[in-house]
């Protein structure tokens, strides 16, 4: 399998997404995770196609597996998967489904689709890395604000806060799609459980980078990335 050059920048992503969607223009819903994913893979995560199986790589778990075009575009841009795969999106022969399968997609740490599984898996991953002495290795998980309705996430948030699981990082992409909203803001749910939590503009790359790299000794860290409301 030949891979096209991995030298891409952010401005290439719409073209890569269009290989899946057939559209040059993408609405806010399709791109809600795009800036977050790009800043993480471009500047924060210590993982590359060459280290995709290394025990000490940073882990990124896409929990909100629905609408993964932006994720696949970033994986292609960074050379984890060949650009040629994108056109087959969703087809029987394609490894790229409407929800990712980790056993089919190089670089994908988990298979997701059913909501509320990534954060508990990330808790276990962070615990497992810590138990193996991989203290510098960070675990990131992307969730959606509506996904946080799932009770399994609240089991994970309470536990991780209680034990001060410093290796765990959540980025919650908030497009105001939770059916009943989060009174007091989504960040308050993490703060109440002892997490470090910040809320930033999910389209502002510098603000995201700063929030992603803020020190949080002895606590897990959550970044709520606010983007345009889904139904706006």
């Amino acid at each position, binding site marked *: 399998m030949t891979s096209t050059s991995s030298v891409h920048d952010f401005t290439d992503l719409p073209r890569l997404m269009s290989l899946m969607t057939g559209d040059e223009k993408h609405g806010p819903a399709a791109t809600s995770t795009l800036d977050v994913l790009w800043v993480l893979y471009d500047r924060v995560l210590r993982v590359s196609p060459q280290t995709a199986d290394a025990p000490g790589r940073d882990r990124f778990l896409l929990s909100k597996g629905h609408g993964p075009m932006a994720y696949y575009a970033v994986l292609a841009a960074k050379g984890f998967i060949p650009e040629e795969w994108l056109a087959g999106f969703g087809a029987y022969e394609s490894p790229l489904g409407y929800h990712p399968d980790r056993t089919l997609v190089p670089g994908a740490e988990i298979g997701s689709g059913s909501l509320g599984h990534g954060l*508990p*898996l990330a808790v*276990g991953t962070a615990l*497992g890395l810590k*138990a193996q002495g991989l203290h510098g290795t960070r675990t990131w998980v992307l969730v959606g604000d509506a996904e946080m309705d799932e009770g*399994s996430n609240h*089991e994970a948030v309470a536990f991780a806060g209680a034990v001060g699981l410093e290796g765990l990082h959540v980025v919650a992409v908030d497009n105001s799609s939770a059916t009943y909203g989060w009174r007091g803001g989504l960040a308050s749910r993490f703060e109440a459980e002892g997490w470090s939590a910040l809320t930033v503009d999910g389209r502002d790359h510098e603000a995201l980078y700063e929030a992603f790299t803020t020190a949080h000794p002895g606590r897990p860290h959550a970044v709520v990335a606010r983007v345009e409301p889904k139904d706006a």
Partner: protein
Amino acid sequence: MDTMRERFAAVTTRLLDEDPRLALALAVISGDRFKDAARAHPDRVIDVGIREQLLVGVAGGLALAGMRPIAHTFASFLVERPFEQVKLDLGHQGVGAVLVSSGGSYDIASGGRTHQAPGDVALLDTLDGWTVHVPGHPDEAEALLRHAAADGDNRVYLRLTEQSNREPLPVSPGRFQLLRAGRSGVVLAVGPMLDAVLEAVEGLDVTVLYASTVRPLDAHTLRAEVRRAEAADVVLVEPYLAGTSVSYAAEALADVPHRVLGLGTAREELRRYGTWQEHVAAHGLDAAGLRERISGFLR
């Protein structure tokens, strides 16, 4: 004699000392039995509180990070309540774990239906790649636990119960054991059902097979013994939902004209408390109940 659950705690504590890849995830249940292990290995003995979705999710995450997780609670809260986590966080991720349940079908009979899990093995049968061990004695539980902990990255379910046979048999994961040969049929006893089965078939001219591992089902031995008997009549005696293994037996015997009877717990809810011994009798799984149904079925 200690119970299977006590043996599990003692042996897992030792295994944690020996194997740095092993981790134990708990959800309060049995936590008091692992206090020493938790002190010795604070990063590898993880009690998540009363959070069973997280219990299985954490096991999946530990495996993704390269560990060999053991997750434990009562069967009802390990397999039934977080079933989607068992399906997705282990199976769909393509990772392994050892799930060790206690309580069986009705150890906690006085606790009522909420603490009874006769459907655990049937539920796991909807999934791919699970090995299921059903020990019939604490010694067998220990041997199967050690086997499971060292069983690569396979997905293994170890079903512990207070019910026990008087004597242990050597475990042979994946193989049924021939205990006696007869002509008028084959009776398969699973785990703790063995003593009652042997008593029930006393004086009957039947083959008795014993299984402490039911998945994979040892189709080879079952076929061989059914063909050897004069009557291709098969009785499966399982300590959980009646008929759980019937489709597996039918598959093993697809080219052998045969009859099969699946005995186990009934699907109907008893709505009774009491002791597990009373539930065994109520489901017709004591020696008298088994004898009546086995001899009624055989010709």
